[in-house]
């Protein structure tokens, strides 16, 4: 791609991600041409050229904006995060994985050995009589083969390098991606360190009717057929909309499913799980602490997975704190 003077330089990268963020970028459809009008896309392994060598050769700060999706799980991903931080003026943690660890961040409930044990030994269809597990270095008859080191933990981007902005969502909705691009183009970015997004909650964009929430029981989603008009939380379904940042248009509640919190904590909220827990406790129709506890235990059998579904890797709850270096080395 030619590098015309006056145009900004844009890079997009994926680390430990599912590819959904890339699909979301492609879903801006013909607007991608508008992006190309204003930016030279200097690095986007998914859709154009993917040569790391070229990035290594760039001057520090040569990239104006880098949209980085995916979390950091291997030595290669850490290298790329550090490289792109150095080369980019503005580094955006793009999507839930980069921002807060997302669902794959639930892997931080286990360590590497437990994950290997399950995947390579215990899963029902695995036959591994020699107890082999993938190695960084393997001797084969023809020579040596190398794999990147699999770290003991999932890291968010800002646990590895300094991040300038955050774009939430799993994945970010195409419309919000476009809003962010426009903000960048017009130089209307919020202060450094901000989330580029709304400061309201999913409840604010949800069309369901809300009255007073007073519930005696939380239902699992398979225990109840909710009516399609009324607030799901009022019907006793754990809907995370109350703690979740707006931006998606309340798409899940519109198909009669509860918000699962993929847009991360609302503005001003440090810990998503703590916020959601407080919100849920406040709708329980009881003043008896024991009764409240029972209602929560019966209806929410997996508090960690429910309250930190997307944010475990970045939460205050993060499993026993370790020195970053030792965790990365898998010690």
């Amino acid at each position, binding site marked *: *791609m030619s590098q015309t003077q006056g145009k900004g330089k844009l890079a997009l990268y994926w680390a430990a*991600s*599912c*590819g*959904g963020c*890339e*699909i*979301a970028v492609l*879903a801006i*459809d013909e607007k991608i041409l508008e992006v190309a009008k204003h930016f030279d896309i200097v690095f986007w*392994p*998914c*859709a*154009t050229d*993917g*040569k*790391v*060598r070229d990035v290594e050769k760039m001057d520090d700060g040569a990239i104006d904006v880098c949209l980085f999706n995916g979390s950091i*799980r291997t030595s*290669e*991903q850490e290298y790329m995060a550090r490289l792109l931080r150095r080369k980019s003026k503005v580094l955006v943690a793009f999507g839930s994985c980069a921002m807060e660890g*997302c669902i*794959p961040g*639930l*892997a931080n409930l*286990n360590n590497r050995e437990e*994950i290997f044990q*399950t*995947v*390579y030994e*215990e*899963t*029902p269809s*695995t*036959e591994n009589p020699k107890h082999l*597990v*993938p190695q960084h270095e*393997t001797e*084969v008859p023809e*020579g040596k*083969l190398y*794999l*990147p080191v*699999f770290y003991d933990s999932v890291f968010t981007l800002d646990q590895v390098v300094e991040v300038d902005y955050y774009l939430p969502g*799993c*994945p970010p909705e195409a419309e919000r991606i476009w809003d962010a691009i426009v903000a960048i183009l017009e130089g209307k970015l919020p202060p450094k360190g901000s989330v580029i997004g709304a400061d309201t909650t999913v409840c604010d964009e949800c069309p369901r009717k809300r009255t007073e929430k007073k519930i005696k029981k939380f239902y*699992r*989603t*398979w*225990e*109840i057929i909710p009516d399609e008009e009324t607030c799901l939380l009022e019907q006793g379904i754990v809907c995370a909309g109350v703690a979740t940042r707006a931006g998606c248009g309340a*798409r*899940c509640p519109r*198909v009669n*499913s509860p918000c699962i919190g993929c847009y991360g904590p609302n503005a001003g909220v440090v810990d998503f799980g703590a916020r959601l827990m407080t919100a849920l406790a406040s709708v329980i129709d009881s003043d008896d602490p024991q009764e409240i506890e029972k209602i929560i235990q019966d209806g929410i*059998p*997996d508090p*960690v*997975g*429910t309250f930190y579904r997307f944010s475990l890797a970045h939460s205050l709850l993060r499993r026993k704190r370790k020195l970053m270096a030792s965790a990365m080395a898998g010690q």
Partner: protein
Amino acid sequence: MKRVTIDPITRLEGHGKIEIFLDDRGEVANAYLQIPELRGFERFCVGRPVEEMPNLTARICGVCPEAHHMAATKALDAVFHVDPPATAKKLRELFYSIFFATDHTTHFYALGGPDFVVGPDAPKAERNILGVVNKVGLEIGGQVIKMRHVGHNLIQLMGGRRVHPNWGLPGGVSRGITEEERREIEAAGRDAVEFAKFSLQLFDKLVLKNSEYVALITGDVYVQKTYYMGTVDANNHVNFYDGMIRVVGPDGREHAKYHPKDYREYVAERVEPWTYLKIPYLKKVGWKGFVDGPDSGVYQATPLSRLNASDGMATPLAQKEFQRFYEVLGGKPVHHTLATHWARLIELLYATERWLELASDPAITSKDYRVLPKEKPTEGVGCVEAPRGTLTHHYITDERGLVVKANLIVGTTNNNASICMSVRRAAQKLIKGGQIREGLLNRVEMAFRSYDPCFGCATHSLPGQMPLEVIIRNPAGDVVERLTQCLD
């Protein structure tokens, strides 16, 4: 020994790489496909409420989240011993057909198609979706974008979101469709069938009428005589959403036909220390190494496999194309892996016909799209055909419905051994006496690409050009030659 490294997305990016070793005579000694990443879903799903699985496992892959969402949802039916009402099954299959049509369109026009539409030896800068548009015209390019756009919008309409739907529940789905929505989906389905017919005509014109391409497809570089797996309905016709798993041998005869819940009797996975991705094989045949033939348990699960493993297609237009496919290629089974592209288009036609058929049924708007399970959750297996192969989700829960064990065999994983072998064979045919022939890069890439490998389900390779780099090193590991194929 010389080493040739092919990194689909360059060395440091961790999305799958190929190592080819040359012996002292410069002939290919061996080739390895390495998957350099793991996320461990099977571990961290343990302890989670099983009803979360359709949403959690969708994050395995953002390219085909619908497949994981659906396999997990069907596993929930089994876990809760509940049979969804007919409307729910129709809605799920409709949703799934739209997804399949959208996904196969992406592959043909953006990934696999450029090799044929633009040509395997065309300048690399043209061998991409833009080159396809140049060749077939802007109007058709616009139709491709529209097809994907409409498909994604309907997926959002039914399932909640374009990427990562939130819709499947044990015993049905969270929401049905209105009559107005049905009409919209039906109208789009009518266009989709025309689009699929057109795509097959295009393949006919550009590929089958070109003797060079036909020679490439039927030549000896891209051949694997393996077992083939696919899901079939009661008539042994291809089905993406539900049915029995059928496996045929390299001779085309039925090796097995089993209910998804019995998958462990038929499929096992081995572990190699040089890749994070496990290697499935047919248990009753056994693992004999990276070789094909009737004594090797290596199998494929691809569009070609699904056609080989079935007796036909359940819709009329696709059935005609199915018959023509085997007439032209000399009977069943077809072992030419490049024919997978043609098979994919036949599946595209089937998916769109199915889409239209299901959307034309006025009964699909019934409110009877969900029943509540009455039994305690225990254990269940759910299978669908993902675009890239048979997808299996298996969950065991405790009494409260918390997962105690999870097992996932994803589409591309089935093909792990076969992809390795295809790459090795292409390398062996193309690299002679240490000479890397011109065009090696794209020809090797083509061996890889016919499988439409989605390492999003393992790592992630996505729509768009897949840049390749071949590094030739001497035994000391120094780079002696470097070839790249990228959009510059």
